[in-house]
């Protein structure tokens, strides 16, 4: 285990996963002395009947659901949060439940900020103090969620609000909420979560606590991904959902890596989804780190990705390389369902150059001058990063 000379790790979310876990929500809310939650969700979750399942699970609890606000859209804007806040006050709610993907969780976190501070202006929260008394907040991940629900960050109108308090109190993962999705829609959130977990544990400043969460997340995803995509058995889908939820916690405790910065910038410039960019760039970022950075890639990565037998069979020095190859195998293995090279996405060259330029300066020390561009170029045609030590 790698121990940096200073690290901090914080996780506020209690994960309740498994059969009939939704039924615990009334009890859990009452133990946090809250009786009237506001449900924040989007149209897709309502149409799929997820809200109906929650209402059934609420049966006989004697409690009341303040309201179901389904106005959240893919791009969360301050207006939606203000509407939800007005509804929250009108109904006299005291806690928040978010059902759905990333945008619902972001809206719910921002709502929590607004109602706990009794204000209408979201922009005053640029720097968040740590001892805010926020309302109890429960997240219910669905198959659209890609990990950011259980993180400390909320993005409203493109502005980032980050504080440890924003983490949900409880993440309830119930198989009934994980509806079947198309193959690509199942793969992409999982690969993005894995990208964040892999990046967190291959950072120089990776700490043992975050590593254990990261390895758990990677292992859950790698083992269950193939099964979830083909068969979609309940156990594998549940395992995948847990892996994705944990990756949110890992992502909050790790510094931003070059992979996720490049993916973010590329998604903004080309309009592709963040999950797709992160998935395509993951193996190439690792490959570059293996060959061109001093610390290279640590051997322990091979264990969660490829399993115990391949880990033991590999020689000590080979493990870093084999770990990267295993990640290549997993991501490139999905080329039947999702595009795995930037060439397939037809991304023009000048956009690659301007993306690399935008990300370069903040990572130059660690990855060298042309690092970002080399990663993008090798991701363009899908081969391994050329040059550097083998």
């Amino acid at each position, binding site marked *: 285990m790698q121990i940096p000379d200073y690290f901090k790790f914080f996780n506020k979310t209690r994960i309740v996963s*498994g059969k*009939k876990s939704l*039924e*615990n929500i*009334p*009890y859990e809310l*009452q133990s946090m002395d809250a009786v009237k939650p506001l449900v924040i969700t989007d149209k897709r979750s309502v149409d799929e009947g997820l809200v109906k399942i929650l*209402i*059934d*699970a*609420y*049966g*006989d*609890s*004697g*409690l*009341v*659901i*303040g*309201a*179901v*606000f389904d*106005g959240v859209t893919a791009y969360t804007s301050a207006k939606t949060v203000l*509407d939800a806040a*007005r*509804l929250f006050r*009108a*109904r006299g709610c005291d806690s928040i439940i978010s059902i759905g993907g990333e945008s619902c969780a972001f809206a719910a976190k921002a709502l929590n900020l607004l109602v706990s501070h009794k204000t209408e202006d979201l922009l005053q929260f640029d720097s968040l103090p740590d001892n805010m008394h926020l309302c109890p907040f429960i997240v219910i991940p669905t198959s659209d969620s890609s990990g950011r629900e259980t993180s400390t960050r909320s993005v409203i109108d493109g502005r980032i609000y980050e504080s440890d308090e924003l983490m949900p109190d409880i993440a309830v993962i119930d198989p009934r909420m994980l509806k079947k999705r198309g193959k690509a829609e199942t793969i992409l959130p999982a690969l993005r979560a894995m990208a964040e977990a892999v990046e967190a544990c291959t950072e120089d400043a990776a700490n043992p606590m975050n590593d254990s969460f990261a390895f758990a997340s990677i292992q859950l995803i790698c083992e269950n991904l193939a099964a979830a995509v083909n068969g979609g058995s309940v156990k594998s889908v549940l395992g995948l959902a847990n892996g994705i939820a944990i990756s949110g916690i890992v992502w909050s405790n790790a510094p931003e890596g070059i992979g996720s910065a490049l993916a973010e910038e590329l998604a903004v410039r080309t309009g592709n989804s963040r999950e797709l960019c992160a998935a395509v760039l993951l193996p190439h970022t690792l490959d570059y780190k293996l060959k061109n950075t001093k610390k290279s890639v640590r051997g322990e990565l091979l264990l969660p990705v490829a399993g115990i037998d391949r880990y033991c069979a590999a020689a000590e020095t080979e493990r870093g390389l084999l770990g990267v190859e295993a990640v290549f195998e997993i991501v490139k293995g999905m080329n039947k369902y999702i595009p795995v090279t930037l060439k397939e996405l037809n991304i023009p060259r000048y956009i690659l150059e301007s993306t690399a330029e935008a990300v370069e300066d903040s990572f130059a020390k660690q990855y060298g001058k042309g690092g970002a561009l080399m990663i993008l170029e090798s991701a363009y045609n899908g081969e391994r990063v050329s040059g550097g030590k083998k």
Partner: protein
Amino acid sequence: MNINKYPEIKSGGKLIKKIYVAVMLWIVGRAIQAASRVDREVKEEFGRLSDDFMMHLHVLPSGPGMIVGKDKNGKVKYMGWNPKGKKITLDMKVKNIEGAMLMFTFQESTCVASANNRLAVSGNVPDTMAFIRILNIVETYLLPKIITSFAVKRYPKWSQMSPMRKYAGRVLVYVRTFTF
């Protein structure tokens, strides 16, 4: 955005499930009282418990419940469902009606249920352990083998419970449970 487009939602009731659990609790309660007279092992278990032992197993928030405890002269009695006027020493709460349903349709044994934090118990641990042993024995009496093997961690082998004792006990318990 008008407010009344998002109405308040009252939580519906689950009446049938509540009735089913109430009936099951009533049967088990009286069966415990019957078994304490019929079965030697149950009598010993209750003997070890304190004199003012009073156990209340009920479903939150306002679901059905049962109370079993020792009355003044130490006899184990089923004391209905209303906890008023009784000093409860062991309070076992099932968190929600669905959890109770899982337990009483025997999809989850008592031990698995408590492991899946379906139960919230307040009272000392030895009493709880004793009560669970009693419950297992009573279930062995009440139900045929196939069902009970779900409900109990390990079905007692013939050596622990001779066939004669089991079948005789079963008849006696049924008789006592359903005769007032």
